[in-house]
């Protein structure tokens, strides 16, 4: 049953050191505010799961919050590398990061299997790829009906899934639209789910087939207006395309990165204050 609580309370009560955490989003509706709050509360030893790790995972990896990353494409969308992820893999800084690597189709299927309470997913995939040589979890299974050899991958059952959505009603029923990625599957595969939303409304006014997560399938709903910045929330605000190349410069150097994290994330009280400090430092740079 979802409680409507502050993001600080939700993270404090539902995400623990050592948890497997999936903060999902497919360049739309990225749960940035929640990612910052996890960093702020100093979580450690996390196993982070995401099809497309982007800036928030670069931040969590760079400050040493993650022990392991399960992923299928890790980059700064439209820009290039995630420098903190790369440095963790290439040089083991700030500490070695265990990598468990899949393809998109695999992780999408693995979430579906998790949501369906199955131990594994079956798909046609990986033929000729070297990925099964470096990830022993990628196995094959022979179809008992046709004899076809198919790829078998373990289902994903995160301890916690965190997503961002457009809105919730006062009971905590959540509505999202646009590019919804794997968020519904990731939410239903998890033991606990936190959803941040742009706003709380009296009624969702959604058509019958809309993508709705009922309040009783969620753990916590938190209001975080602008909480997907620098990604976007369709119907609310656009992607801040300038932030992504700016992040490339910040994250390229360890010290610049750590100073930025301290000033903007660790030393701020919440996402609203982060946005205020970010606006100040941006104005100072231009002035």
């Amino acid at each position, binding site marked *: 049953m979802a409680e409507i609580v502050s993001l600080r309370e939700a993270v404090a009560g539902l995400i623990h050191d050592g948890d497997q955490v999936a903060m999902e989003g*497919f360049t*739309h509706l990225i749960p940035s505010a929640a990612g910052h709050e996890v960093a702020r509360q100093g979580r450690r030893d996390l196993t982070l799961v995401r099809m497309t790790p982007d800036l928030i995972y670069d931040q969590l990896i760079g400050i040493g919050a993650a022990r392991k990353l399960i992923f299928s494409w890790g980059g700064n*969308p439209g820009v290039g590398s995630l420098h903190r992820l790369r440095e963790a893999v290439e040089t083991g800084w700030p500490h070695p990061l265990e990598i468990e690597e899949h393809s998109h189709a695999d992780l999408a299927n693995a979430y*579906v299997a998790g949501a369906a309470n199955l131990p594994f997913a079956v*798909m*046609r995939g990986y033929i000729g790829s070297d990925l099964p040589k470096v990830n022993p979890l990628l196995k094959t299974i022979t179809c008992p009906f046709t004899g076809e050899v198919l790829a078998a991958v373990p289902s994903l059952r995160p301890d916690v899934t965190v997503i961002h959505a457009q809105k919730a009603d006062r009971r905590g029923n959540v509505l999202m639209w646009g590019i919804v990625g794997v968020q519904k599957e990731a939410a239903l595969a998890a033991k606990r789910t936190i959803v941040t939303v742009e706003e709380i409304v009296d009624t969702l006014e959604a058509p019958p087939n809309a993508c709705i997560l009922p309040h009783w399938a969620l753990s916590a709903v938190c209001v975080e207006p602008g909480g997907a910045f620098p990604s976007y929330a369709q119907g609310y605000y656009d*992607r801040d395309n300038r932030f992504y190349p700016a992040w490339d410069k910040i994250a390229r150097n360890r010290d610049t990165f750590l100073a930025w994290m301290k000033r903007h994330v660790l030393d701020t009280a919440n996402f609203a204050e982060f946005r205020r400090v970010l606006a100040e430092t941006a104005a100072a740079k231009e002035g």
Partner: protein
Amino acid sequence: MTEFTTNEMMTVAAARRLKNGAVCFVGIGLPSTAANLARLTHAPDVVLIYESGPIGAKPQVLPLSIGDGDLALNADTVVATPEIFRYWLQGGRINVGFLGAAQIDRHANLNTTVIGPYDRPKTRLPGAGGAPEIAGSAGEILIILRQSKRAFVDRLDFITTVGFLDGGDARERAGLKTKGPVAVITDLGILEPDPVTRELTVTHIHRGVTREQLVAATGWPLKFADTVVETEPPTETELTALRDLNARTAAAHGQDQGSE
């Protein structure tokens, strides 16, 4: 004849390979530029599918990321990512997969994972994304990337995405039933797999490019087809459409098109 850049020639040549009415699974970056140019010129009925969920996407500007809002707003429908991979790709409904890569070998296998050993990479690349299953399930594959010795290598450190493996019938023997790569379009020319050995062979050279340039930009002893023709240069219509698209994109995003 209007002057054109090698990048423009590459994008135009790649766009021409996409037939009107084809259903195309599009990677972000160069494939997305070429696929949208096709849609805006000779292939108005091409159906563009992006792995983030849009089906029948008709973006007004080029997306910077695979999940830009414009892709969703102008699509025929937007479905969840698992549905894209399960029903539409694995379901066999995609005619053409349009891929880029960091590295390619002579049998059109692709690397987007690591340069150097996997456990201690010299360069960690973004990873597989949707490519391994696109390469297996789409009816045929088009590949677009700039040609250089760093990209066209004798031996891949990692095969992320299958082409023809060791060549010959290795792809079929591995159990793949789709055609695989049919053309690699670069800024210097077009390479196509030899029908028997499946080794990438130069079939087209872009205007102003020499055989020596192609050889120098390739990390294996490059073969040329018996008949090599000059790629037809971009027409005014193609160039205008491409330049307008890039200008609209730059104005909308305040920067150049995406690189990934």
